[in-house]
């Protein structure tokens, strides 16, 4: 299916839950309401026309000027491994879920795609998005006692960690680009 057909199908099925459709560019996506996201995810995974069985990646975005955080779910449908056909994506699509920067909560889809488990932990660790109903929401890369979420744009670099001094150029709290 083309991205246009997929977005139309989602619009017809979920109506208001689809807040925005962006088809321009190389990475077409829809914006889904955070509280309706699990049922949309179930539909994307189970529907016979879509069958998005592979969650390739969860990217998290820091939309600092809008005071928002977002998670982008990069989906792809691959045929079953038993098929004789080569493993190519018949279709791919992306879903964006936007949440508040102050109190970021997105429902977890770890029960829909197993892959989401670690990816959501990473997004939580580095961007601070809390995934509700996640089976095991702990930090995955940083140490458990790490302060803050490093990939946020307003993150302040640690000056010291367990007695090891840390510095940035010219003693700034975070690097300037």
């Amino acid at each position: 299916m083309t991205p246009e057909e997929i977005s139309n199908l989602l619009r017809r099925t979920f109506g208001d839950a689809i807040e925005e459709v962006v088809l321009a560019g190389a990475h077409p996506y829809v914006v889904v309401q955070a509280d309706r996201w699990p049922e949309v995810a179930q539909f994307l995974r189970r529907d016979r026309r879509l069958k998005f069985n592979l969650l390739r990646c969860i990217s998290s975005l820091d939309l600092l000027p809008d005071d928002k955080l977002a998670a982008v779910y990069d989906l792809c449908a691959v045929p079953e491994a038993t098929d004789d056909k080569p493993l190519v994506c018949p279709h791919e699509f992306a879903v964006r879920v936007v949440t508040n920067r102050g109190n970021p909560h997105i429902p977890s889809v770890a029960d829909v795609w197993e892959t989401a488990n670690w990816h959501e932990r990473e997004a939580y660790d580095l961007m601070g998005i809390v995934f509700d109903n996640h089976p095991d929401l702990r930090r995955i890369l940083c140490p458990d006692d790490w302060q803050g979420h490093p990939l946020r744009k307003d993150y302040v670099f640690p000056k010291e960690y367990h007695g090891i001094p840390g510095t940035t150029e010219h003693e700034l709290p975070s690097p300037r680009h």
Partner: protein
Amino acid sequence: MSWIDNRIEDGVIITSLDWAINWARTSSLWPVTFGLACCAIEMMATGASRFDIDRFGAGAFRPTPRQADLMIVAGTVTYKMASRLKRLYNQMPDPKYVMAMGACTVGGGPYFKHGYHVVKGVDLVVPVDVYIPGCPPRPESLLEGLMRLQDKIRHQTRAKDKVALANRDKLAPLTV
């Protein structure tokens, strides 16, 4: 011919204790296998047949720090890894030596400015004997660093070293 020549029985060797101990230590530096990032690839190349670190007696990479004299910190040290590194260092028996291999361990390297998680030089965690710059250093550099470390060991002495005693507290590594 000096006064000592031709005075000793055949089969007797005369040397100084310092020289003998330093010779033994210099020629059997066993490194602990401690590769953290891409520098470890160069360290492996140094151990393999083309460069052959065994020519210097330092080819017995030990899987446990308790059997090792030398820690080649090869790669990026993160804050999370620093406590493990410190523990491995503490498990090594004395005398122990540390080589900081590569830009990351020398001073943070490419992560100095933007790496929120990278220790800005492994000498903030453990005392370092030899620094080897490069990103990553070529095996020749590592061998050169090893030879400089061997030079350093050759000049050690068992006699009381007043400078070392006075600086003992300053040299104590930071606690992690």
